[in-house]
Structures are given as C-alpha cells and as structure tokens.
C-alpha cells in the first residue's frame, strides 16, 4: 500500500542514516524481512525511480512507525538524508517476502554486513519471542560501519564483531568468524543480509555445516513492486530449473543454496529462456 508518512525523527547510527516515519498501514502489516520503497526528490523531482530501503524497527507509537536505515550513495539518498522532522515521505510497502521463522525454538545465527544488519534486529525480536537462541555476527569495513553492535549485544546470547581494518572486534570478514560461531552455538539456521559477495560466502559456510541459510539480497530496484523487471537474479526453483527471478517480489529473502551467487550479473546458459538455450518455437 502507499502511505504518505510524516518523518518523526532523524538520527545518525554509526556511519548510517535512520529516519523514523509515521506510517500506520505499513507498520501494521510488517514482518521481519519486508522492505519499503520511497519516492525521493520531492513532487517535481527529476528522479523517477524509487529507493528500496530496509526497515530497522517498527513501533506502535503514533499509530505505527517504521525506522528506515540507509547510507548516502547518490543524489536520491542524499536527499533522504536531508529530511527533517515533519517532512513527508511517499512510501510504498511493506514489500517483498519476509524471513520464514522456525516453527520450534531453534539456535539462530544472524549475520549482517554494513547496514544490511539493520533488517536483522526486528528478525531477532521475532525469533526471541518464539524462544529461539539468537547469536549475532556483524561486520563492516571499519568500526563506524558496523551497524547496531550495541543493540546486538543487548539482545543476543553472543555477539561477534568483525572489521576489515581491525578497528573493532576481530580483524577480517563476517565469514571468517562465522564457522566458529556456528560450531560453538550448535546453530540450526543462519539468517543473513549483506552484499552479494558476502552472502555467497555465508551460504558456502552454512552449506559446509549442512544447515539452512535464509539470505536477504540487496539488489538495486526501480519500482519494488514487480513491474520493472530490473532486480533479477538467477535462482533455482523447486523443479530444479534456474529462473531469473525478481528480488522485490520473489525475494528479497531466498534460501541461500538456491541462489546462484556466482552467476549474479549474468544470465546462466541453462537458465529458463537464456539466449541460445532451450528450444525456440519459431516455425
């Protein structure tokens, strides 16, 4: 649904921006893993595509608020970063398929890199409410780019932090720390949200331990509602066939082992409808 939300508060979280927006309709329907798309640049903008943003927090105040987390990467997110309390935002959401939750209490490792970690916190709340054990592995390039370390420490049984420059926690990537965390916590499932390369390695680690991994991908999108066909990636379906599926409506959460991470950015030759692949029906 589309909501014109009012910005309630803005804040910096480490190196990132967070906007809390009053959006009752979205807050009500939200489940962890959902995202929203935001129109940027105001009513007469020259920016025609929406920005997909992850939801970091949902609260019941003021009829329902959502907190959106993003980093400034271009003129659109720079405009968003300039929003102040009482400005209005055009939001569409909640969008996408949320994280599936285990039926019975399970040991869950939540892996996040950079601001991808933001979506893991409402997920952790939901898991904890179901009696799951939650352990975090959060990373980033430097200390200020590790999102939500403090909050993770308060929520989780253990929190492992990694930075590539060694300024916080272990030096290295989240996937360097992940195997020992999975082993120590006897994890049943891994949840991850990170750039494609990291998700690929996280999935490889989880597959080594033979446990499922739910990966939320960060693809660039123009519409967020499934009509523009620009956010596709190769995913193996139940029938074993690879299809170019839309991250916005079929995702953003996928079973990691189903995503052909090594082929992202290409059309695999055996994908359904790949050029030269399969029979053409031209008479």
């Amino acid at each position: 649904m589309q909501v014109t939300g009012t910005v309630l508060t803005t804040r910096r979280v480490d190196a990132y921006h967070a906007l809390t927006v009053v959006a009752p309709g979205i807050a009500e329907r939200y489940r962890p893993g959902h995202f929203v798309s935001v129109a940027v640049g105001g009513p007469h903008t020259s920016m025609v595509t929406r920005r997909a943003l992850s939801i970091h927090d949902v609260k019941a105040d003021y009829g329902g608020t959502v907190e959106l987390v993003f980093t400034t990467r271009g003129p659109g997110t720079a405009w968003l970063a300039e929003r102040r309390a009482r400005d209005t935002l055009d939001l569409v959401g909640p969008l996408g398929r949320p994280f599936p939750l285990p039926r019975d209490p399970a040991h869950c490792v939540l892996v996040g890199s950079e601001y991808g970690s933001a979506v893991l916190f409402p997920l952790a709340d939901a898991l904890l409410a179901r009696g799951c054990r939650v352990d975090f592995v959060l990373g980033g390039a430097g200390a200020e780019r590790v999102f939500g370390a403090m909050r993770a420490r308060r929520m989780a049984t253990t929190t492992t932090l990694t930075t590539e420059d060694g300024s916080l926690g272990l030096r290295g990537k989240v996937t360097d720390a992940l195997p020992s965390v999975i082993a120590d916590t006897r994890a049943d499932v891994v949840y991850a949200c990170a750039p494609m390369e990291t998700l690929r390695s996280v999935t490889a680690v989880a597959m080594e331990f033979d446990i499922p991994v739910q990966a939320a991908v960060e693809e660039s999108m123009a519409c967020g509602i499934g009509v523009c066909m620009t956010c596709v990636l190769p995913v193996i379906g139940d029938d074993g066939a690879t299809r170019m599926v839309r991250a916005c409506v079929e995702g953003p959460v996928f079973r990691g082992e189903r995503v052909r991470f090594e082929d992202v950015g290409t059309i695999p030759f055996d994908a359904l409808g790949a050029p030269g692949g399969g029979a053409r029906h031209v008479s």
Partner: protein
Amino acid sequence: MSVDMRTFLAHVELANPITTAAGCASSGQELSQFFDLHRLGALTTRSITMAPRAGRPTPRMAETPSGMLNAVGLQGPGIEAFLERELPWLAQRGIKTIVSIGGGTVAEYSELARRLADAPGVTALEVNLSCPNMEDRGRVFAREGSAAAEVIASVRSIMRYDVPVVAKLAPDVADIVAVARACVDAGADALSMINNPLGMAIDTEALRPSLAAVTGGLSGPAILPLAVRCVWQVHAALPGVPLIGVGGVMSGQDAFQLVLAGACAVGVGTALFHDPYACLRIERELEDLLRARGFQRLADAVGLAHRPPGSAPRHLLVDTEESTP
C-alpha cells in the same frame, strides 16, 4: 458535470484513454494489489515472445536526468505460459487487454498472432516493432517502413477482423511519418508511439557503461517532448488514424499534451515505477483539465492543437451555437 472520457481504438471502445505502456505492468497481477484494473482504459501486457526469455544480465537499469535507462531484454514466460496463466487471469476478470507481441522474424510475429487469434480476452494486439533491447540488433523492424509493413501485413491477415492491430513505433528513425504510413497501408488499425529511444550512461566510478547491455531504452519525462513531436507529426499526416501516445507521461497535463497533439489514448509507463497509482491519478488529472477548459468530451480535444492560428477551439464554438436557440 463529468467529462465523457470514452475513446475508440479503431472500433473498440475504451472507458477512458489511459492505458499502461507495454512492459511496465508486467502480467497485471502486480498492479492489481494496488487498484482495480477495471479502472484502466486498457492494460497493455509486456511484449510476449514465442519462447520464454531470461532477458539481459544485470545491471538492467540506470537512473538518468528526468528518466531512466532500461535493458531488460523482453524477459517473459513465452506465449505458452502467457496463454495458460496470464491472459486467462485478465480475461476472467474482464479486464480490457492490449497484448503486446515481440519477435525476431516475420514468421515469429505471425506465429504469435496465430496463437492469439483464438484466445479469449485480447482487446487489441500491439506489435512491438521497435524494442531496442532485442538481442538481434540487425532487425529492428521499426527503423524501416518496408520491414515494419511486412510484419503488420502478416499479423493483420492472421488476426480476427474485430481485434485491432496496433503498430508500436520507435522514435529513432529518420522519418517516423513514413514508417507510420507504411504500417497503416499494411493494415494497422492504430499506431502507438513512442517506444524507448536508445540511450547510454557511463558509471564514472567504475569507468564502464552503467548497463550490462551497454545501451538501453530511455524512458521517463525526458522523452515526453519526443513523444509529443512524433504524435504531432503523425497525426498531421494521418489525421484519421487512432494514436496511442506513450512516452514520459507523469501527469494529467503530460497526457493532455499528447491528446492535443492527436493521441486518442495515452500510455503510462515509467510513472508506474514511481507511483503504482499513476494511471488513476493521471486519468483524474486529465479529466479535471478537460473540465476546467470547458470540454464535455475527450474526443473534442484530440488533435485540437493542430487548428489553424486564430481559430477558436471547436468545442467552445459548438457550445455557443447550442446555447443560442
């Protein structure tokens, strides 16, 4: 007082002139969660191809000033799945559907027309002659009148007489009027213009083209003036041919420009990416604009900007005559 928004695409009546542009509404089901698709004049499907197509690699999209580039490459399920799932879904709901088709050869277009000829629920057939994303770069039919005419003549001879065949034209041509005339002579009942002109953007960080396919179709408000020019020129040359004006329509005022230039229907594309409710908003804004200018019928505004300088708008003349008994 409400304005009569009905319009005719050849002999097919549409409740209002606003349609979705081909490739911008996917299968229709995605938009139906936002609004009732019956409120569209018609829904235009993505271009259906014979075989399923995986499309182009990503990145497929790049935002540009007042627009965007796309190189999706006609990703779609192919005609089998379309006839099995997508078209029946639309037909069962009675949604007016313009089916867009795309092919690499005249034979492929003809085969698509054959498969669609007996399918229930096809309000009109739009022949995508001009998709700049097609892999087969040697055959962009819309660039040459004779190639376009060959496709249209074949498709027209196969489709049932009561299903209008619409030729979708590209703006990347030396003389769009010549291509339009060739299509009409070959039997096109209506014309749709414009498809995306080709564009390109370069990522200055990566020092490479922004799109994996290098070039892509430019859409959005940046191309509205191009669409208005094409509709104007074709309407001036072929005033009797119904035109669907498409290209960068973001508001009722944009749609009104195309109507005044000669379009009897208006396609909304990129605006849907920005605002899922764009079609309804644009229809409402267009109706308000017509009412504010004293129009009782949309049809009175079609091509009105072509009237000679100094002459009063037709619809106002009619009004005064009727009010002086």
